[in-house]
């Protein structure tokens, strides 16, 4: 069975992922399908947001793209290179054009390195220019992410706040001028007033460096501000994928609708039109048969238990994996 209705023409896309499966062994001789046959593609210049609750496999997916977590099967093609079958050294050079930013900005920087060393490290490893050229490059990068190089260059990373550390991480990730940036919950550890600064910075950097972003997040409000396309995951499967505006205004999957209606609105006069969603996600060790969301879905029927729904067209460029999509 192929589930590729939503994939676009091969020549148009920068990254194409097909039938990606990532498994983990758990005690009791069982396996967890953290990512279960996921396919999607990303065009150059797009920002694809991957959203879902904790445990839906979004972080594992991000890691599997970079082959930090080896997938069990499936393909990840980036600029024509098949990342899953590259040799160690080829993979290392391929990774220079895909970089990652992590959730916790403070623990993702070495506290015993100065900011200069942190941002310079990728340049030094790849011998990009002599020492003076590299220092100039580091200064430009820091300037671009809104830090004053003169003030920060020789300070240690532990001296900075979360927001500043995230700026340093962004500078480091841009040092090798990657084509794609995978951001794994880059603002969820930051304060509310700092979130907006980092989101705007990511958008600016995207324009300046011509980046393509994959933005992994659980926060639907944040995702709406930054993404052009959105992919909703539930228990390792894709539920819905489509242009952001279309998915938010007309969610076709009942899970997406429930997620959107659960977001608290900062307006006391707003009447909550809650689409009730009961319980919590079932264990991924033993996922429900057929549609994985059926145990919590208000529209579930017998068909949902027996047959797994395939992605099908809901609106222009907007695909949903549901037997009974919302009108």
């Amino acid at each position, binding site marked *: 069975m192929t589930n590729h209705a939503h994939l676009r023409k091969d020549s148009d896309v920068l990254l194409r992922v097909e039938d990606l499966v990532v498994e983990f062994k758990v005690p009791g001789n069982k396996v967890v399908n953290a990512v279960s046959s996921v396919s999607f593609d990303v065009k150059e210049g797009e920002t694809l947001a991957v959203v879902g609750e904790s445990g839906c496999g979004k972080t594992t997916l991000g890691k599997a793209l970079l082959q930090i977590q080896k997938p069990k099967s499936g393909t990840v093609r980036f600029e024509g290179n098949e990342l899953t079958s590259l040799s160690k050294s080829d993979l290392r050079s391929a990774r220079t054009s895909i970089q990652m930013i992590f959730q916790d900005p403070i623990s993702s920087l070495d506290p015993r390195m100065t900011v200069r060393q942190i941002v310079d490290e990728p340049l030094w490893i790849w011998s990009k220019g002599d020492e003076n050229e590299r220092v100039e490059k580091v200064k430009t990068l820091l300037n671009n992410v809104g830090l004053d190089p003169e003030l920060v260059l020789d300070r240690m990373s532990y001296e900075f706040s979360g927001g500043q550390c995230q700026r340093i991480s962004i500078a480091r990730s841009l040092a090798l001028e990657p084509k794609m940036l995978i951001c794994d919950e880059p603002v969820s550890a930051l304060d509310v007033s700092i979130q907006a*600064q980092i989101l705007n910075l990511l958008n600016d950097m995207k324009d300046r460096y011509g980046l393509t972003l994959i933005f992994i997040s659980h926060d639907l409000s944040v995702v709406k501000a930054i993404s*052009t396309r959105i992919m909703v995951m539930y228990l390792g499967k894709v539920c819905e994928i489509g242009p952001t505006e279309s998915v938010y205004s007309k969610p076709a999957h009942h899970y997406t609708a429930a997620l959107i209606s659960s977001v608290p609105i*900062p307006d006391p006069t707003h009447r909550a039109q809650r689409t009730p969603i009961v319980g919590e996600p079932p264990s991924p060790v033993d996922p429900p048969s057929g549609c994985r969301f059926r145990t919590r879905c208000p529209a579930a029927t017998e068909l949902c238990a027996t047959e797994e729904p395939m992605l099908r067209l809901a609106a222009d460029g907007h695909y949903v994996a549901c037997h009974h999509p919302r009108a």
Partner: protein
Amino acid sequence: MSSILKLENLRVRFSTHRGQLEAVRGVDLDIQAGTSIGIVGESGSGKTVMSRAAMGLLTGSNVTRDGRISFDGKVLSDMSREEVRNEFGTGMAMIFQDPMTALNPVRRIGSQLQESLRVRLGMSRKESRARSIELLTLVRIPEPKQMLRKFPSQLSGGMRQRIMIAIAISCNPKLLFADEPTTALDVTVQAQILELLTDLRQRLNMTMVLVTHDLGVVAGNTDYVAVMYAGEIVEQAPTTELFANMKMPYTEALFKSIPNIQMKAGSRLPVIEGRLPDPTDRPLGCGFAARCSYAQEKCFAEHPELEEAKDGHLYRCWFPLGDSIPRKVS
């Protein structure tokens, strides 16, 4: 309505190696019985320290607490530690942000639930077990009997937060502090927990203080809101009034900078530049002046006091929004 918790000029200072850090700087708050109030602010605004001080939880040798805290007519500073434990331990309860670390990982849920019932209310083993099952049913845990035998590590975040709520309400508190109760949870579970808290509050006739950074959570679940900044209350009003008619530029800036699901996709967010002032070295004037786009000379020189606009809408600003005073935008 009567006052249940009254804070008068509450100040909390910590001695640190960098000098005195004043985390709460003269907070006056009068919480009426039966209402629900939201305390909003960024990290470092003093909201958590304030609520812990109000519960009598901050007692270390490096902490200085000034001001009067009265709960249900009794003044905290007049009481011995023993009395504080008895009065505040049952009359007030707190739910903490992180349900993963607030429970003891090596004790079963049952024993953690029964602890306060037996120690505080003097119940027998049998009574406390029956009451525990009642409480678990109240927080809508399926199969409460089996739950008593489980360890926290076997539960999801949402389930653990329900257990925390069950423990918090076990001694029939009059006042419930919920310190970021849903920040560590998923959105769908957050909606369930907030709904549960609102339901329990009405059913058990509790007063609730909801401490959060999320204006969305406050909007749907509180009657009053107090906005804190740099250890002070900078604006306070009934919830609908506050959202309709913000007076303090900080409240407005915070509100606008938060990504909102109702805004257009891909829109650029207005940001609050800069950071909170250093708590060991507070500025002379208004704490927000350095980040405020309406700041005037007076804002840097003189500290504004809380003023009342109308019907209990308080604000701390020399040049409140919605005023006709002309001001230059810097």
